[in-house]
C-alpha cells in the first residue's frame, strides 16, 4: 500500500554527423549529412526506429491504461530537442502525448530544453533553457510544469539553489548512499540550502530491476513477473514513496517487445491498483510544501556538496566529464557563451545549444567494464575517439562562424 511515483524520460539528441577537415567553412549542417547530393539524416532514421519500437506502442499502452484505470497516474519529462524531433520525424508521438496530457493523469516535468549540463556551467544559460522548455511545453500541451528534473538527474546543493530561485515546487534526483547515510530513500527530503526545496529520490534498485535487469537471464530473479514485482512493493508502508524513474525507451527499445516488457507493465499497473498501491505524481506530492513551510522545515535534509547523477555505478559526473576529451570539449562550448550571445544570431544560438546536449560528452567516455558497456550501447559512434573527433571538427567550424559574425557586427 505504498505510494508509487512513476516518471519516464523521453530524450533524443541531435547527434553530430561525420565532419572532415575538407568540410570546414562551407556552412554545412552539423547534424544532417549528405551523400551524392541527397540528405542523409541519421537522427531521423534513429528517431523513427525508436518511435516504432518504443514511443508509439508504449504511449498507446499508457493511454489505454490511463483510460481503464482512473487511479493510474505518472509523470513524463520530454527534452525540447526530443519534442522538436518528434514534430519533424514522427508527429504521431506528439498526438499521443497530447492525448495523454488531456487525461489529466499525466504530469509533464520541467527540464533544460537541450538536455544540457548548463546547471554546472552557467546559471543564466540554465535558466534560459528551462524557460525555453517551459514555453514549448505550454505551446504543445497547454500545461506549465511545476516540478523540475535536471539532465540525468544531476543534482547538488548549488543546483537546488538555482532551481529554487526559478520558482519550482520541488525536484527529483538520485538517492546516493554516500549522501543518504542509511536513511530510507522512500521519504521526502529537503535540499540542504537556505531556502529549502522538497525532493523525491529515485528508488534505484526497483527502477533498475525493470530498466536494466528485466531481460537479463543471468539475474537470479529472472524472469521478472508482475506478481513477483508487486509482491516486493507490498513490503512498503503507506507513508513510503517508491519512486520509479527510468528512460521511456526501457519499454520496447532497451528491453525489446519479445522480452514481454509491455505485458509486464500492463499487469504491473493492474496488480498495483488491485493491491491498493496509490499512484501519485511529483507535483501532487511536492506542491503542498509550498504553502506549508513548517512541514517543509521538518523534512530531513539531503546534503549533496558534490554533484551526483543517476548514471553508472558511481552516480557521479564522470560519465560526462571524467577525461580530458570531455573536459576540453565542455570548456570550449561554455567558453563561447558570451561571444555567441553577443552575435544574437538565431542559427548560431541554436547550434551552440544543440552542441551542449549532454550526450555528446557521454559518447566520449572511456570507462571500462559494465559502465563502459552501457555507454557503448547508447553511443552511435564506433568509439569515444570518433565522438571526440567529430566534436572537435564541428567546434572548429563553429568558432569560425562566431568569429566571422562578431567581426561583421563590429564593423559599422
Amino acid at each position, binding site marked *: 500500500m505504498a505510494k508509487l511515483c512513476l516518471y519516464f524520460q523521453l530524450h533524443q539528441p541531435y547527434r553530430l554527423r561525420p565532419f572532415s*577537415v575538407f568540410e570546414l567553412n562551407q556552412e554545412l549542417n552539423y547534424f544532417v549529412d549528405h551523400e551524392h547530393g541527397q540528405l542523409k539524416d541519421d537522427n531521423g532514421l534513429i528517431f523513427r526506429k525508436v518511435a516504432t519500437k518504443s514511443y508509439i506502442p508504449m504511449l498507446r499502452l499508457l493511454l489505454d491504461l490511463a483510460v481503464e484505470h482512473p487511479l493510474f497516474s505518472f509523470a513524463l519529462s520530454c527534452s525540447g530537442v526530443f519534442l522538436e524531433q518528434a514534430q519533424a520525424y514522427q508527429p504521431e508521438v506528439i498526438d499521443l502525448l497530447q492525448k495523454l496530457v488531456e487525461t489529466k493523469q499525466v504530469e509533464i516535468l520541467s527540464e533544460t530544453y537541450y538536455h544540457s549540463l548548463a546547471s554546472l556551467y552557467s546559471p543564466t544559460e540554465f535558466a534560459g533553457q528551462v524557460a525555453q522548455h517551459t514555453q514549448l511545453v505550454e505551446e504543445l500541451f497547454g500545461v506549465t510544469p511545476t516540478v523540475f528534473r535536471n539532465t540525468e538527474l544531476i543534482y547538488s546543493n548549488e543546483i537546488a539553489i538555482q532551481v529554487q530561485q526559478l520558482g519550482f515546487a520541488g525536484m527529483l534526483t538520485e538517492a546516493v548512499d554516500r549522501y543518504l547515510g542509511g536513511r530510507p530513500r522512500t521519504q521526502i527530503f529537503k535540499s540542504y540550502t537556505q531556502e529549502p526545496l522538497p525532493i523525491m529520490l529515485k528508488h534505484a534498485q526497483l527502477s533498475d530491476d525493470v530498466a536494466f535487469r528485466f531481460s537479463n537471464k543471468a539475474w537470479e530473479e529472472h524472469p521478472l513477473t508482475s506478481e513477483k514485482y508487486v509482491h516486493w512493493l507490498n513490503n512498503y508502508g503507506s507513508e513510503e514513496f517508491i519512486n520509479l524513474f527510468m528512460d521511456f525507451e526501457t519499454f520496447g527499445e532497451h528491453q525489446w517487445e519479445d522480452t514481454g516488457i509491455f505485458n509486464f507493465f500492463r499487469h504491473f499497473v493492474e496488480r498495483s491498483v488491485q493491491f491498493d498501491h496509490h499512484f501519485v505524481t511529483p507535483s501532487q506530492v511536492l506542491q503542498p510544501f509550498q504553502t506549508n513551510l513548517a512541514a517543509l522545515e521538518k523534512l530531513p535534509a539531503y546534503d549533496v556538496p558534490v554533484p551526483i547523477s543517476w548514471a553508472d555505478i558511481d552516480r557521479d559526473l564522470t560519465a560526462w566529464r571524467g577525461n580530458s*576529451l570531455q573536459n*576540453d*570539449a565542455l570548456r570550449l562550448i561554455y567558453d563561447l557563451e558570451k561571444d555567441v550571445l553577443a552575435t544574437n544570431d538565431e542559427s548560431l544560438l541554436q547550434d551552440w545549444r544543440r552542441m551542449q546536449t549532454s550526450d555528446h560528452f557521454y559518447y566520449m567516455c572511456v570507462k571500462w567494464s559494465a559502465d563502459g558497456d552501457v555507454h557503448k550501447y547508447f553511443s552511435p559512434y564506433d568509439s569515444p575517439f570518433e565522438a*571526440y573527433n567529430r566534436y*572537435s571538427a564541428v567546434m572548429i567550424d563553429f568558432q569560425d562562424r562566431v568569429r566571422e559574425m562578431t567581426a561583421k557586427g563590429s564593423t559599422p
Partner: protein
Amino acid sequence: MRDAQHRVFMVGWEYPPHNSGGLGVACEGLTHALADNNAHIYFTLPYRFSSVVDHMNVITCQTASDDPVLLGMPPFLAYTPSLPGPAVFSTKDSLELSSLPQSEIEQRVNYYADQVLGVGKDLRRKYDIIHAHDWMAFPAAMKLQEKVNKPFIAHVHSTEMDRIPSGRGSHYIAHTEYLGMQRADRVIAVSNFTKRILVTKYNVDPKKIDVVHNGVTPASRLPSDQLQFATKRPMVVFMGRLTAQKGAEYFLQLASAVVNLIPDALFVVAGHGDQYHSLLFQSAYQQLSASVLFTGFMRDHQRDALLSRADVFVMPSLSEPFGLVALEAAQRQVPVIVSTNSGVKEMLQHALQSDFWDVSKMANQIKELIQNQDYRQQVIAGQNTDLEQTTWNNAAGKVSDIYSKLLDKKN
C-alpha cells in the same frame, strides 16, 4: 642504349596501392625509372597483388589464405613492431613452423624468405643481381644468394634504430639488418644521415655503402574543385604514422606554442598509429581540441588536397632516414620544416630545419612563414630549385652505376 641490360631480382615487401608508407612509394618510383633505364626487373611481394603493373614482373610469394579478409592485404604492420601482423600461413610444414621464431611478423618474414627462394631458384638464369629492400627482404635475399651465388644489394630505407628511437627495438630485426648488410656485396643508404647510422650503429664498412637519395614523382594536378576546400585558418600539417619515430607529440607541443602566437592556427594530424589514442588525450589535455584536428590515415586525392592546402608542412621526426612526404609537400608549393635528424634535408636544402625538440624555434619559423609573404615565397622558390635535382631518374642512374660496377667486378 647504354650498357648491357640489367637483369634484377628485387625482393620487395609492399607496393602501391597497398602500402603503409614510404617504402612502397620508393619501390614504385625506383623501379619505373630503372625500367626506363633499360633494366628488366622481377619484383616479389608477400601478398597477392591484383593491380596492373607493366614496367616489371610482379611475383606473388604467398600462398592464398583461407581468410578472404586478408587476401590482397599488405603486411602493413611490418613497421609497427609492437603489434603482430596478420598471420597468413600455409600450415603444411608443421615441422618447419614449430622451429620458427615467436613473433608472427618474424614468422612471416621467414616464410616469405622460403617462398622467394623457390621462385628465385627457378628464375636463376633470368637475372644477374639480387636487390632487397629493408630487413623484411634480407632473409630472402641471403638465402637466395647462398643458393644462386649472385651479387646481393641491401637497400636500406629505414632501420630499427630509426623506428624505435629509444634504442629498445626488436633485437631480432636489428640483427637481421646487421646480417643482411654484412652479407650484402653493396649497401645502398637513402641518405648520408642513414649511412652514418649504418656505420656507427651497425658497424658497416663505409666504403661498402653508396648513398642514393630517393626521388619524387612529379605531382599530379588536382581537379580544381578539390582545391576549394577548407578553412580560412592558417593550416599547419603533419602527415605520417603516429609512432614515436615521427614525433607527433612534438607537433602537439608545437601547436600549443603557435596557438599562443596565432590563435586561429589550425593543426592537422593525418595518419594512424599506436600513439593515436594517447595523442588525442594529450591534445585535449593541452586544450587544443579546437586547434588540432585528427583526420586518420589519408591516401590519394584527400592526401594531395590536404598537402596542397597546407600553409606549412612540418616533419618533426626523431629519426627519419629519408622523408619522402616532405618532398611531396614541397612539390605542392608548401614551405617545409624538416627535422635535422632526417635524410631529406640533404636534398631539400632550402627547406627550414629544426631539431625535433626545439618547439620554440619551429613556432617562430611558422609564424614567420605565415606572416611574411616575401620570406614564404623565397623559401618556396628555393625548394623548387632543390626539387629539380630530386628525380627518380637521378636515383636510378646511380643504382644502374652500382649494378654495372658490381657486374664488372664479377666478370
